[in-house]
């Protein structure tokens, strides 16, 4: 699939932005700056980037507990994300959602999701609204290999198929659900094979290669926009760090395995390819990296300097039309 020079730059910028965001967030979490748990997605950048390269702000995505990459690829502001994770009032959700619940309506980001499998029907619903409104937008649902054990994925795939909804099911198979290897918990070698049971195309994609993801996603999203119904993409990928910041992955996986995946790192792969094909040069790549390094540093400073949510925020946003006043004491 043809990629414009601007798109190429966007792809690299986005992948590197995710990478830096996650690395810096981990450092900050260890320093105690992030208030809760941080589920990082470095290693998996090619997936959200290759998919969201085809989306606009009018398209919707549903995400997971490991949602930073999805947010960034959908154009969500990194300073607002960092502030949210720091529990600050300037965060995208005023500090009320945290890492596992970052949402940005304006960007078509339905929310990271603390409940495994729960984001899937939301993306299907967004696709239903697209279909009913006839506006040509799509819903994309990101979920992990582990989430395919939940009923919501099966129910959602069937619903999307019988209603021919413009939705793309994107399974980020990073081979583990917390400590559980995918072979233990999933009955098929390729999760994409399950798509056949719901009469939709199922495609296995190299989730470490952003060009492969870009191509597969382009086809699936075009199909959806053309009213031809859902597609299931399985991205084979790997998370570089533990399940969350304090998890030691070596209690359940080998360093040798990690090295094999890191040898296929999506960023150097991209760099090599664009330089070989004369599409971008090292100077430009470095300029992008420097810009992003600065952006993420600024995001941390912004988050750090931002105020905590005011006390009254505890009671607001429970409903649209009245301020909740039932308190725990008189």
């Amino acid at each position, binding site marked *: 699939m043809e990629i414009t020079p601007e798109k190429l730059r966007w792809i690299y910028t986005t992948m590197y932005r995710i990478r830096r965001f996650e690395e810096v967030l981990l450092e900050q979490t260890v320093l105690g700056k992030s208030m809760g748990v941080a589920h990082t997605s470095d290693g998996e950048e090619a997936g959200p980037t290759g998919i969201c390269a085809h989306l606009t702000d009018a398209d919707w995505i549903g995400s997971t507990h490991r949602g930073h990459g999805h947010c960034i690829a959908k154009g969500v502001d990194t300073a607002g994300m960092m502030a949210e994770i720091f529990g600050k009032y300037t965060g995208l959700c005023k500090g009320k959602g945290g890492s596992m619940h970052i949402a940005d309506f304006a960007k078509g980001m339905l929310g990271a999701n603390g*409940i495994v499998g729960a984001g899937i029907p939301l993306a299907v619903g967004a696709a239903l609204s697209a279909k009913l409104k006839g506006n040509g937008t799509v819903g994309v649902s990101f979920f992990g290999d582990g989430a395919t054990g*939940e009923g919501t994925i099966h129910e959602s795939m069937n619903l999307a198929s019988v209603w021919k909804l413009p939705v793309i099911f994107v399974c980020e198979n990073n081979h583990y659900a917390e400590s559980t290897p995918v072979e233990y*918990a999933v009955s098929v070698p390729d999760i994409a094979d399950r798509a056949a049971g719901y009469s939709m195309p199922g495609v296995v994609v190299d989730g470490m290669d952003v060009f492969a993801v870009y191509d597969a996603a382009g086809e699936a999203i075009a199909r959806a926009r053309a009213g031809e119904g859902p597609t299931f993409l399985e991205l084979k990928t790997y998370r570089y760090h533990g399940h969350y910041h304090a998890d030691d992955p070596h209690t359940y996986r080998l360093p040798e395995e990690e090295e094999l995946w890191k040898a296929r790192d999506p960023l150097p792969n991209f760099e090599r390819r664009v330089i070989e094909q004369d599409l971008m040069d090292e100077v430009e790549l470095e300029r992008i990296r420097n810009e992003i390094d600065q952006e993420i540093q600024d995001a941390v400073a912004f988050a750090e300097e931002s105020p905590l949510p005011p006390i009254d925020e505890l009671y607001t946003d429970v409903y649209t039309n009245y301020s909740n006043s039932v308190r725990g004491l008189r």
Partner: protein
Amino acid sequence: MTEITFRQALQRGLREALDADPNVFLMGEDIGKYDGAYAVTQGLLEKYGPDRVRDTPISEAAFVGAGVGAAVAGLRPVVELMSMSFSLVASDQIVNMAAKIRYMSGGQLKVPMVLRAPTGGGVQLAATHSQSFENWYASVPGLKVVTPSTPYDALGLLRSSIEDDNPVIFAENALLYATRGDVPDAEYFVPIGVADVKRTGTDITLVGWAHGIVTLMAAAEKLAETGVSAEVVDLRSLRPLDMETVIESVEKTGRALVLDENWRTAGFGAEIAAEIGYRSSDYLDGPVARVSGTDTPSPYSRPLEQLGIPQVAWVIDEIEKTYGI
């Protein structure tokens, strides 16, 4: 007696139950090689093997439901959820199956299953991960709901829960796992449905359960400094509910405060307060005082989250406002 943590008490309870009855088995997400999300099942896979310590896919509806089925068919499953919040995914199996099968089958079938899950908030896991639902489940006929506050009760009640022929929701407040307390070295059971007076006093009865007891004990300590003698009643289980012990205490002290860390509206604290008022109004110096969690989803940001969680100061404050002591 040996001093151990709440977590160790639960683990000993599981070991004893696995040793005592070959029909007992455990299942849940990452409970085997990974030792469980809160390390309660540490080392059990090694000792008892994968048939009895069974890792599951992330399929709460399926494995909780399979627990119900296995229980009906003669085993004694102890099912672990990573969080009580995730029990919602399996709530149909819990409320429509586990709780009703015996009744609907005219007493033919029984469901000797225990569903263990960490409950509560306070650690910035935000709204979807900080819930308890023990009061929801306590409103369902057919379920037992057990809510220990100490290592002693955790071990003794877990043993009783596993031996019980009914489905038991076993709520483990996550803030309690690291707390310590003495337990007997010999095997023992704590009966389900018997409240426990955790501290005796003469001026006011403080009623709570699970982590609420930590707050109430600290409040009682604080009250003692100003010469107020508080009695702390730990319900230990919400269903069956031992109101007798509560009423006896209230009729002795003439004052009562109920602490419910969950949402206030339609909370279990309301049930207790109403029952005390109904049964003991002649003995009371004023209305039953209530302290509860705030009726909002749990916010992520720490200061905001803390603002919604009952604190010792709230208890003191509420007692002062209600009774002027």
